[in-house]
C-alpha cells in the first residue's frame, strides 16, 4: 500500500531516485530506533519522517539546488548517484541481508471485514495512506501555502516576481516529499525485510505510476495509485508469477492509447 503514498511524489513533481533511498532510510530509522532505544512503532511513524526529511533538506540545499535551471535529467542522475552511495553505505553498516521488523501486537493478526479476513496491519496502512492523501490534497488545494507551491511549480519566474521566495518553497516541498517517502518506508517495514535495496522496486513502480497517471489533477494521481494497488492485489491471486509485470504492461497500454497519461493534459506531456 506504499503505492498509495508513492502517488504523492508524482503529485509534487519531484519524482527521482532519491525517494527510493529515503523510503529505505525511513525503514532503517525505525529499525535502528527499535533496536537501540526501543523506539515504539507509533513514535517511529513521526521520528523517521522528521529525521529523514531533515536529511533530504540537507541534500536539497547543499547539492540539488545547484542543478536547478539545468536539464532536469541532471537532477535524476545526481539522485541515482545518491542511491548508489547510500545503498552501499547501508550495506556496509547493516549488511546485505534483511532484518525483520515487527508491527505492534495490537496490529498483528487479522480482522474480519464482513466478507473476508484481512490482515489488521494492512488495514492500518490503508487507513494511514488515505489520511495522508487527504491531508496532502487539502494542504495543496485549500491552503495559501499549497496555492503557492502549485504556483511555484507552474510558473516559478512569475511567482518570484510577486515577491515569494520560491527557493524556500521548493526546499520545503522536497523535504515534505522525502518525509512522506520515509513514512512509507516505516509503514512498509513490517511487511517486508528492512534491507538496503528495499527502495529500488518501489521507485520503479512509482515511475510507472507517474507515467500512467500523467501530471495534472491530484485526484487523478491518487485514483491511479489506488487502482494499481488493487490491480496488483487481484493480480497476485490470478497469476502470481507475473504480478510484478502487470503495472508495466498497463503502462505500455496507456502510452499507446493516451501518451500523456490517463489524467494528464497533452500540454504537460513533456
Amino acid at each position: 500500500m506504499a503505492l498509495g503514498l508513492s502517488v504523492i511524489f508524482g503529485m509534487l513533481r519531484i519524482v527521482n531516485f532519491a525517494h527510493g533511498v529515503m523510503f529505505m532510510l525511513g525503514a532503517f530509522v525505525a529499525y535502528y530506533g527499535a533496536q537501540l532505544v526501543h523506539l515504539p512503532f507509533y513514535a517511529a511513524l513521526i521520528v523517521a519522517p522528521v529525521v529523514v526529511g531533515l536529511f533530504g533538506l540537507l541534500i536539497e540545499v547543499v547539492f540539488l539546488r545547484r542543478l536547478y535551471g539545468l536539464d532536469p535529467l541532471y537532477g535524476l542522475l545526481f539522485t541515482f548517484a545518491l542511491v548508489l552511495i547510500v545503498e552501499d553505505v547501508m550495506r556496509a553498516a547493516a549488511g546485505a541481508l534483511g532484518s525483520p521488523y515487527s508491527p505492534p501486537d495490537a496490529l498483528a493478526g487479522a480482522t474480519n471485514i464482513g466478507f473476508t479476513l484481512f490482515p489488521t496491519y494492512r488495514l492500518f496502512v490503508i487507513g494511514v495512506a488515505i489520511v495522508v492523501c487527504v491531508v496532502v490534497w487539502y494542504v495543496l488545494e485549500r491552503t495559501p501555502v499549497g496555492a503557492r507551491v502549485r504556483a511555484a511549480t507552474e510558473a516559478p519566474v512569475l511567482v518570484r516576481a510577486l515577491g515569494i521566495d520560491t527557493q524556500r518553497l521548493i526546499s520545503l516541498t522536497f523535504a515534505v516529499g522525502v518525509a512522506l517517502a520515509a513514512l512509507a518506508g516505516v509503514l512498509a517495514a513490517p511487511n517486508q525485510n528492512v534491507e538496503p535495496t528495499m527502495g529500488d522496486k518501489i521507485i520503479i513502480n512509482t515511475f510507472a505510476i507517474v507515467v500512467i497517471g500523467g501530471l495534472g489533477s491530484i485526484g487523478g494521481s491518487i485514483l491511479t495509485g489506488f487502482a494499481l494497488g488493487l490491480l496488483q492485489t487481484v493480480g497476485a491471486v490470478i497469476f502470481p508469477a507475473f504480478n510484478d509485470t502487470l503495472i508495466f504492461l498497463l503502462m505500455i497500454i496507456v502510452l499507446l492509447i493516451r501518451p500523456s497519461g490517463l489524467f494528464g493534459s497533452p500540454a504537460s506531456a513533456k
Partner: protein
Amino acid sequence: MTTALLGTRRGALVAAALLLVALVLPKLIYPVLAIDIIAYALFAVAFDLLLGFTGLLSFGHAMFWGGAGYVTTILVARMHLPLALAALIALVYAAVLALIVGAIAIRRQGIYFAMITLALAQLQYFFAYQLGDWTGGENGVQLTARGNLLGIPLENDVAFYYAVLVIAALGTWFVVRVVRSPFGAVLGAMRENEQRAIALGFRVDRYKLVAFVLSGTLAGLAGILFAVGNRLSGLDGVDWHTSGKVVMMSLLGGIGTVFGPIVGAGLFESLDYFVSKTIVGDKTNIVMGTIFALCVLLFRRGIVGELLAGARKRSS
C-alpha cells in the same frame, strides 16, 4: 560543437592514442578485465549515440546489453547452436526489442523517456527472473566454453580480447560514420531544437526510432561480447544498475564526444576493479557514486569534454 573533434587531426590523434592503449591493455591488466573494459566501451559508445547525439536519455539500456547476452548464452549452452549463429540471433533480438521499446518510449520526452525505458527494462528483468528454467534465475547461464568464431578458437583470453577489440573498433567506427552522416546531422538538429527540425519537415519520430534501434543493437553487440568473454550471463546484466552504469561511464568521459565514453568506460571499470581491492571491498559504489555525483555537480562535460573545451579556449 564537440562533434568537430571527429574530423580533425586532434580526433585522429585521440583515436590513435586510445587504440594504442587498447593494444597493450591485456599486458597491463588481467585479460578478462580488459575484455570487460572494451565491451563496456562499446556499450557506452552505443548509449552515447542516443544521449549525446540525439538527446535521449535511456535508463534501460541494460535490457539490450543483458538481453542479447542471455540470448547468446542460452542458445549456445542449452540449444547447442554455434556461437556465430547464436550471436546473430541475439543481435536480431536486441534490434527487435529496441524497435518495440523505442516505438513506445519516444512518445514522451526528457525525464519521462528515461522512466519509460527504465520501466520497460524492468519488465524484461522480471521475465528473466521468473523464467528461471531458461535463464538460470540467480545463477545465470554459464558457458562451459567460448567455442570458436568462424574457425578462430576463442578459449585464450588474450586472443579473445583482440577479437573483441576488432569488433568494438568496427562498432565505434560505425557510430562515427552515423554521427557524421546527413542522418547524424538531423539527429543533432533534433537534439538542439526539435520544433525547428519538425518545421523543416523532418519526421523526428522516425529518426529517433532509427537512432534508438541502432543504439540498442550496438548495446546488444557489446553485451554479447561481455557475456561470451565472461562465459556467463546473469541477472546483473539486465538490472537497472547496469543501465545506470553506462550512463555514468558516458557522462564521466563526456557525452557527445564519441571517444569520451570509451575513456569513461575504461576509467570506470579499472577504478571499480582497483577500489574493490581496497578496504571498501565490494561496496565500490560508495566511491563510484561519489565520483559520479561530483561529475554531475562540477564537470558535466566529462573528462574528454572538459579537455576539448580547454583546448578550444587556448586556441581561440
